[in-house]
């Protein structure tokens, strides 16, 4: 059995082994192996290529841009996605604009340990995929399975553009698989995680598993819910979403991020604009509440969508 977190570690080990241009830079990722141990032993296995950084997110990310210009393929670990706000400018205005401005690619993989876990509170829980997806020049991945954590991270390192890799902390240990995948869907392609003909649920990251649990619940009630795992939120695989809505006629977009804007708004807006005639009922969204992510588990469990609230939203929508 291999966990989602181990898959991320294995992908980095393979990337380091296969490509001399790859190196990893971030806080506490060397001998210590990272705050979550995502780089465990890599510093020992690949001497000089897994470097501890000072607490300087802007400079860490800016240095990655320079190294990429010189042909390297840096993997940057930001200790928590929430701290990328202090390196934000180098990501959205430097890395993301380089290729368009100069024609020189900027292959950087930025690993953002993302999303909520009980007790993490307002500053160690954020889901920032929707924020980065707004900027031209970035690819934004949100792997929801052990297989994708591995194969998408490898693909991220191979891609010539900056990739925001939103790995979900809640899945680090919870999620296990028998083995690592040998092949995978390419980035930019969504996956039908569960087939169904009554309702299409579009989601990603940790919410995929809440949605699947809710779908199981509705199966008891004889509803067949189709669940689409986006995998990549930019580009957004609109064709797969539309094809599913064409089958079901109903759409629910579920996200862990805040309710204004973000992935669920983009999904619903695209389906409404391009698949209007396919809809038999109003498309719906379910997001977290519009406050910072609360510390106390009681509050946190209510702040974000759960199998229970998702199931309720599914029922509401199926009754329309």
């Amino acid at each position, binding site marked *: 059995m291999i966990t989602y977190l181990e898959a991320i570690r294995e992908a980095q080990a393979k990337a380091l082994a296969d490509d001399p241009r790859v190196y990893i830079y971030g806080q506490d990722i060397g001998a210590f192996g990272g705050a979550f141990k995502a780089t465990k032993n890599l510093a020992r296995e690949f001497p000089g290529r897994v470097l501890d950084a000072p607490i300087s997110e802007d400079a860490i990310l800016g240095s990655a841009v320079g190294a990429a210009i010189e042909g390297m393929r840096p993997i940057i670990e930001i200790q928590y996605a929430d701290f990328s706000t202090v390196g934000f400018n180098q990501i959205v205005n430097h890395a993301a604009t380089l290729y368009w401005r100069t024609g020189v690619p900027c292959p950087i993989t930025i690993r953002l340990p993302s999303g909520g876990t009980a*007790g993490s509170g307002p500053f160690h829980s954020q889901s920032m995929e929707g924020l980065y997806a707004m900027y031209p020049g970035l690819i934004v991945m949100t792997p929801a399975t052990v297989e994708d954590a591995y194969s998408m991270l490898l693909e991220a390192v191979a891609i010539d553009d900056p990739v925001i890799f939103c790995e979900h902390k809640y899945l680090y240990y919870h999620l296990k698989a028998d083995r690592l995948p040998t092949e995978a869907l390419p980035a930019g392609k969504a996956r039908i995680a569960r087939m169904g003909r009554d309702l299409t649920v579009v989601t990603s990251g940790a919410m995929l598993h809440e949605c699947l649990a809710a779908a199981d619940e509705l199966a008891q009630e004889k509803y067949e819910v189709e669940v689409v795992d986006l995998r990549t939120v930019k580009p957004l695989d609109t064709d797969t979403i539309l094809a599913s809505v064409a089958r079901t006629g109903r759409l629910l977009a579920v996200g862990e991020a805040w309710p204004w804007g973000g992935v669920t708004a983009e999904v619903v807006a695209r389906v409404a604009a391009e698949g209007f005639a396919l809809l038999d009922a109003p498309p719906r969204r379910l997001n977290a509440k519009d*406050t910072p992510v609360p510390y106390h588990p009681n509050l946190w469990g209510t702040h974000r969508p759960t199998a229970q609230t998702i199931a309720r939203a599914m029922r509401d929508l199926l009754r329309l």
Partner: protein
Amino acid sequence: MLDSALRVAPAAAACDHLTTAYRWMLLARLLEEKMASLYRAGKITGGVFVGRGQEALSVSIGMTLQKGDIFAPLIRDQAGRLAFGEPLLDSVRTYLGSRLGPMRGRDGNVHRGRPREGLLPMISHLGAMISAVCGTLIARRFKGEGGVIGATCLGEGGTSTGAFHEAMNLAAVERLPLLMIVANNQYAYSTPTERQFACAHLCDRAAGYGIAGHQVDGTDLEACLKTLSIAADQARNGGGPQLIVAHLLRLAGHGEHDDASYISEELKASPLGRDCLDQAAALLLERGWASQADLSCWRDEALQQIEEAVATVQREAPPDPNTEHWSALATERLIDGHALPPEAP
């Protein structure tokens, strides 16, 4: 907010400064040990971050600041918080997420404060609080409230943030009465100082901002109290920002989840590795300011106070998601009703 002060040291006024400081340190140490044990028992979700080995420095800040001053503590400042006047209950309630705590279960552990009483609640992003303290001091200047100072803390790792630099420079340009206390405890999480900075002494940065710099042995309570009061007087009297760098060692993991196996034996064996609490106790005994009996009775009092607080808080209700007001705005009329999930009422 002085009640807990009185409770811990009934005759505080008469009692020697050093004794009071020691008793706050002791209370902080024992309180954090209690939080750590609750964490190990699975009674605290999230993390527990302790100031073990840094109590002498931290308490000196709290004792040097006066009523009306500003304090923005960081993750290792339980002692300073208590001495500044933060009720013991605030810490326990925030760790256990009680709805009666200052953060009402919305934020946790070290992310607590009472802005209205000059105690700023840290956000996690290192360095971010320094400019906020600058802002409070600018406000005091606008309001014509002189003689006020503001203190904030950071680890040596936090000095690598752009936020630290911008705030120090701004404070220097505005010549604000800011005490910037840097606890160089040799590690930032697992990262040793040689991977964090390359200057001989962090104190050398003071000249680069045009401000006063002070260095102190962070394991020596008397030295910390002395240095802090000198720096505070200078700041209070128009001397501008003061950078205080204390040298010590983190005598715990980064958090209670961390066994800190990476901390070098050499450092542990070095003077930096001394436990400031033991040092302070030894001093009190040596000076005859306290007897072994005093020490153990203070300890018992502190433990009892902690047990009471924990018992109280454990009886308190956790936050209730159903009665929780799910809005981040002070302005009710501007709440975006449509941003609520469809299934919400």
